[in-house]
C-alpha cells in the first residue's frame, strides 16, 4: 500500500496486496469482523491468509490491554502465503487496542480509531500516560478519528434495542468503513447478518444499519480521500471454503476414517492450542466419530491405542506438555506395532510456556522423545489448509506401516485460516490395510510384509487369529515374550528399518528455484508461507537463492542429500534453537548447514527473513 494518501481528491488506487488488522475488546466482535471481511474478499476473488490474535485470558477486564482481541488478514491479487508482517490499515476500537496493536501497524499506514472510546478513563486503563491522539505517538501514521460509537448509536435510533446491543453493533460500522475503503460489496455480510439474527429482526436491522452507516460515513469524510482496489487474484478454478488448521486437521482425520470404512476414535485431554480439534470432532459423531475427553493425557493416548488395537482409527491430539506425558504410551505403540496418530499442535515452551503463542520446538521430542530405540514417523503440516492432507496422510502412514505417526502442526497454523479448494473423498489416495494371512494353525502376529516390514492388523473379534501382544520384547514372528539377546537386536533393527523404509512411500523434496543458487533456504512445518514469500521476492529481484520445505521429518525424503550437496550454504530457518538443523547435521555431516532461529512466540516476518537472506548472499 502506498505510504501517502492523496489529499483533497477522491481517487482509487490499485494495490497488489494489503494487510488489515482489526483490534478491539474481546467483546467487540473483532474475530467476526475480520472473518466477514475475509469472506467478502475471498468472494471478490482475492487470495488471502488470516490470523487471529486472542488474549490468553478468557475474559480480561474490559478496556485493558490484556483483554484485546485482534484479527489480521492479508488480501492480494497475487498469491498470498502469510497474514502479512505489518498492517497497512489498523482499526483500533479503543485505547487498549491501539496500545497493544500499534507495534503491528506499518509506519506511514492508516489507523482508524473509535474516537468516542478515547476518554480519559479508557486512556489511563490502557496504560497511556497522555492521550496518544494528542501527544505525537501517532505522528508517523495517517490517523482517522471516527466517532464510531456515537454514529452507530445515531444510526440505530428508533430500533427497540438496549444500549448494550447497540454498542455491540459498532464492529459492523467499522466493517462498513473498510468495505468502502476497499470497494467491497455489503451484500454477503448483510446476508450473513440476516441469517445470524433470523430470530431477532431488530438486531438484524441494527447490524445492517450500522454496516451501511459506516460505509456511507467513510465515503463522506475527508480523512479517507482515497479508496483502494485490490483486484482479484488468478486463482485455480474450483469450489473453495475457508478453513483453519485445527478444523482441517479434524476433517482430514475424519476423511481418512471414512475412506477406510472405519470409525475415528479420538482420545484427548483439553489443551491450548489443540482443543479445537477435539471440539470440531465432537460435533460429527454422526459420521462415525467417537470422542472421549479422557481423564488425562495418558488416558487419552492409551484409549486411542486400545481403539487402534481393536481395529478403528485411534488418534490423540495435544500440545507439547501433553506430548511429554504421552511418551511412554507412544513407545508401547512402537513396540506392539499398532497404528496410532498423535497430533502435536506446538506452542511456546518449555513447561507451560506460552500456551497461545506459536513455536516449532517439539521436533526433538517427536523424533527422539521416548525411552530407548523408539522410532516414530514424524510429519509436519505447513499451511492451515494442508493440515487436512497431512492429517489424512498421518492415518494412511500409521495404518499402512503399523506404527505411530506424530503429526506436528503449531499454534500459527492451528488458528490461521485461508481459502481452501477442498478435495472430494474419491480423489484422496487409497489407504491399504495389511490384512492378516490365513494360517493352518498358530497365527503369527509378527509376520511381516516383505516390502514395508509392517505386520498385519489382526483385530480382536476375528476368528482364528487370537494372539497376545505387549510392551515386552517379543520373539520375531510369534510375538511371544523373548529375552534372547540376538532376537532383541534383530527386533530393534527391524522396527527402525520399518520406519526408515517409509521413505519409499513419501514424495521427494521439491526445490523452489533454479538450482544454481549458492544459498539454499530450508524450512519445515508452519513457517512455509513466510519463507516462500521472502525467497520468491528475492528470486524476483534476481538473487541466487533456492528453497526447500520439509513436510516429512522422519524419515526424510530420499533426495534430501542429493539436493543439499549442490549448495555452499544451507540455511535452516526455524522457530526454535535449531532442532531441525541439528537433525540434518547428524544425517548429513560435512555439509555447511547453518541456522537462523527465532524464539519469540511469533512467526517469521518476511522483511526480517529477506534481510537475513541478503546478508547471507553477501558473504
Amino acid at each position, binding site marked *: 500500500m502506498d505510504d501517502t494518501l492523496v489529499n483533497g481528491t477522491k481517487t482509487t488506487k490499485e494495490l497488489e496486496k494489503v494487510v488489515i488488522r482489526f483490534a478491539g475488546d474481546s467483546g467487540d466482535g473483532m474475530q467476526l469482523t475480520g472473518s466477514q471481511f475475509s469472506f467478502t474478499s475471498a468472494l471478490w476473488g482475492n487470495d488471502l491468509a488470516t490470523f487471529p490474535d486472542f488474549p490468553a485470558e478468557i475474559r480480561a477486564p474490559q478496556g485493558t490491554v490484556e483483554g484485546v482481541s485482534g484479527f489480521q488478514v492479508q488480501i492480494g491479487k497475487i498469491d498470498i502465503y502469510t497474514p502479512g508482517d505489518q498492517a497497512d490499515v489498523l482499526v483500533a476500537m479503543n485505547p487498549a487496542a491501539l496500545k497493544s496493536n500499534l507495534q503491528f501497524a506499518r509506519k506511514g499506514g492508516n489507523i482508524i480509531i473509535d474516537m468516542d472510546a478515547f476518554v480519559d478513563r479508557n486512556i489511563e486503563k490502557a496504560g497511556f500516560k497522555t492521550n496518544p491522539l494528542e501527544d505525537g505517538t501517532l505522528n508517523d501514521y495517517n490517523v482517522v478519528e471516527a466517532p464510531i460509537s456515537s454514529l452507530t448509536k445515531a444510526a440505530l435510533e428508533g430500533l427497540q434495542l438496549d444500549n448494550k446491543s447497540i454498542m455491540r453493533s459498532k464492529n459492523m460500522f467499522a466493517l462498513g468503513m473498510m468495505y468502502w475503503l476497499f470497494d467491497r460489496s455489503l451484500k454477503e455480510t448483510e446476508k450473513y447478518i440476516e441469517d445470524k439474527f433470523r430470530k431477532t429482526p431488530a438486531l438484524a436491522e441494527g447490524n445492517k444499519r450500522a454496516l451501511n452507516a459506516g460505509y456511507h460515513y467513510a465515503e463522506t469524510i475527508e480523512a479517507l480521500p482515497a479508496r483502494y482496489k485490490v483486484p482479484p487474484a488468478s486463482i485455480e478454478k474450483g469450489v473453495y471454503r475457508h478453513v483453519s488448521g485445527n478444523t482441517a486437521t479434524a476433517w482430514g482425520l475424519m476423511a481418512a476414517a471414512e475412506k477406510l470404512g472405519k470409525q475415528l476414535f479420538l*482420545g484427548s485431554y483439553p489443551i491450548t492450542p489443540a482443543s479445537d480439534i477435539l471440539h470440531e470432532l465432537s460435533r460429527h459423531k454422526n459420521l462415525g466419530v467417537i470422542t472421549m475427553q479422557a481423564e488425562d493425557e495418558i488416558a487419552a493416548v492409551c484409549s486411542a491405542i486400545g481403539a487402534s488395537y481393536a481395529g478403528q482409527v485411534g488418534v490423540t491430539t495435544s500440545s507439547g506438555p501433553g506430548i511429554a506425558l504421552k511418551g511412554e504410551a507412544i513407545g508401547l505403540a512402537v513396540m506392539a506395532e499398532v497404528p496410532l496418530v498423535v497430533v502435536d499442535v506446538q506452542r511456546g515452551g518449555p513447561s507451560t510456556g506460552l500456551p497461545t503463542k506459536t513455536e516449532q520446538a517439539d521436533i526433538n521430542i517427536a523424533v527422539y522423545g521416548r525411552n530407548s530405540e523408539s522410532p516414530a514417523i514424524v510429519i509436519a503440516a505447513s499451511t492451515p489448509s494442508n493440515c487436512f492432507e497431512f492429517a489424512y496422510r498421518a492415518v494412511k502412514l500409521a495404518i499402512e506401516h503399523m506404527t505411530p505417526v506424530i503429526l506436528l502442526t503449531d499454534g500459527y497454523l492451528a488458528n490461521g485460516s485461508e481459502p481452501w479448494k477442498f478435495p472430494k473423498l474419491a480423489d484422496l489416495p487409497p489407504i491399504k490395510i495389511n490384512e492378516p494371512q490365513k494360517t493352518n494353525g498358530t497365527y503369527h502376529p509378527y509376520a511381516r510384509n516383505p516390502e514395508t516390514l509392517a505386520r498385519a492388523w489382526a483385530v*480382536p473379534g476375528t*476368528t482364528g487369529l487370537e494372539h497376545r501382544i505387549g510392551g515386552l520384547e517379543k520373539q520375531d514372528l510369534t510375538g511371544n515374550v523373548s529375552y534372547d539377546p540376538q532376537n532383541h537386536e534383530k527386533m530393534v533393527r527391524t522396527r527402525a528399518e520399518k520406519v526408515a523404509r517409509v521413505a519409499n512411500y513419501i514424495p521427494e523434496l521439491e526445490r523452489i528455484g533454479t538450482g544454481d543458487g549458492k544459498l539454499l533456504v530450508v524450512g519445515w512445518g508452519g513457517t512455509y508461507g513466510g519463507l516462500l514469500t521472502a525467497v520468491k521476492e528475492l528470486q524476483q529481484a534476481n538473487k541466487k537463492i533456492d528453497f526447500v520445505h520439509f513436510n516429512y521429518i522422519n524419515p526424510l525424503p530420499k533426495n534430501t542429500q542429493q539436493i543439499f550437496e549442490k549448495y555452499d550454504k544451507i540455511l535452516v530457518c526455524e522457530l526454535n534453537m535449531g532442532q531441525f538443523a541439528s537433525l540434518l547435521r547428524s544425517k548429513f555431516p560435512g555439509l555447511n548447514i547453518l541456522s537462523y532461529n527465532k524464539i519469540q512466540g511469533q512467526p517469521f516476518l518476511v522483511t526480517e527473513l529477506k534481510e537475513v537472506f541478503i546478508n547471507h548472499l553477501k558473504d
Partner: protein
Amino acid sequence: MENTIDIPQQKLTKKDFESDQLVRWCPGCGDYSILSAMTNALPQLNIPRENVVFISGIGCAARFPYYMNTYGFHTIHGRGPAVATGVKLANPKLSVWEIQGDGDAMAIGGNHFIHALRRNIDINIILFNNEIYGLTKGQYSPTSPTGLVTKSTPYGSIERPFHAAELVIGAQGTFYARTIDTNPKLMTEIFVHAAKHMGTSLVEVLQNCVIFNDDAHAAVTARENRDDFQLHVKHGQPLLFGKENKKGIRLNGLKLEVVTLGENGITEKDILVHDAHAEDPTLHLMLARMAPPHFPMALGVIREVRAKTYDEAIAEEREKITKNAKYHSVDDLLKSGETWEIK
C-alpha cells in the same frame, strides 16, 4: 474384519482358553488359582473365544493375558483401564477383561481406575490385591497396612492404605465383588457374575504373594479362620456366617454389629438381608469395610446396580444425532457452510 478364518463352532472347554505359554509365576503364587478360575469361568459364558480380550498393565498379575488363549494386550503400568476403554468403544461386542494388581490400579493407575468406574464402561476389572509390589521385589503398595515392613519401609510403612471398595463406591461404581484366591469355586462364580453385569465390574481378589507378603490375608483365608471370618453375601439372603451359620450381622443404629442367633433374643428377623441392588451404597460400603478381628470379611457380590453404561450412552447419542443430521459424509460436510466458486 472380513478376512476371518472359519473354525467350526463347538462348546468351548477350559482347555480352549489356556495358551501354549509356560506360566511363570512363583511356585505357590495365588495367581495360578485365579488363572484356573478364569479358564473355568469363560466356557460358561458362551462367548466366542475371538470376542474375548484380556488387557493388563504392569506387574506380576499383568502377565495374565499371555496365559489366555484369547486376544490379549499387555500394556503399560497403570494404564490398562484406559486401553481397555478404547478397545470396548472401538468394538462394543467384545468381552473386555482388565487385569490389575493393587499398585497398578491404585497407585500409578489410580486416575484411570476411578474414571473407568465413573464412566461405567462395560468392562470387567479383576484386581489382584496382595498388598505388596511383587514384580519390583517387595516394596509397600497403596493397600499395604500401616506398619508393614518392606524393602522401602524398613521401619514399617507410615502411610494409610486404600480400600478398593471405598474407591469403587466413591467413583459411583456399579459392581463390586470380593473373593479370595483360596476359593476357586467362589472366584469362578464371581467372574461369571461380573461378566454378566452391564457396566464396569470390579472384582477384588485377595491374593497371596508367597514371596514378599506371605499370609497377608491369613486372618480371612486360613483354614482355622474361614468360618468365623468369612461372610459369603448373596443378594436377598440374610447375612449369616460361622460354623453353624449362627452368627449374623445386625444394623444397630448407624452401625453394624455381629450377633448370634438365639442369644439375647436374637432371631433371624434381626439379621440384615443383603440387598446388592440398592442404589444407595451406604450399606454396601459398611459391609465392604468389615474386617477381622471384630468382623468377618464380606465375600461375594456386595454391590450390583444397573446404570447406563458409557458404551450404551455413546451408541444412544450417536443414534439421536444421526437422526437429525443434515449431512452424512465428509464430502457433504466440506460442502456445507460458506463456500464459493472461482470460475
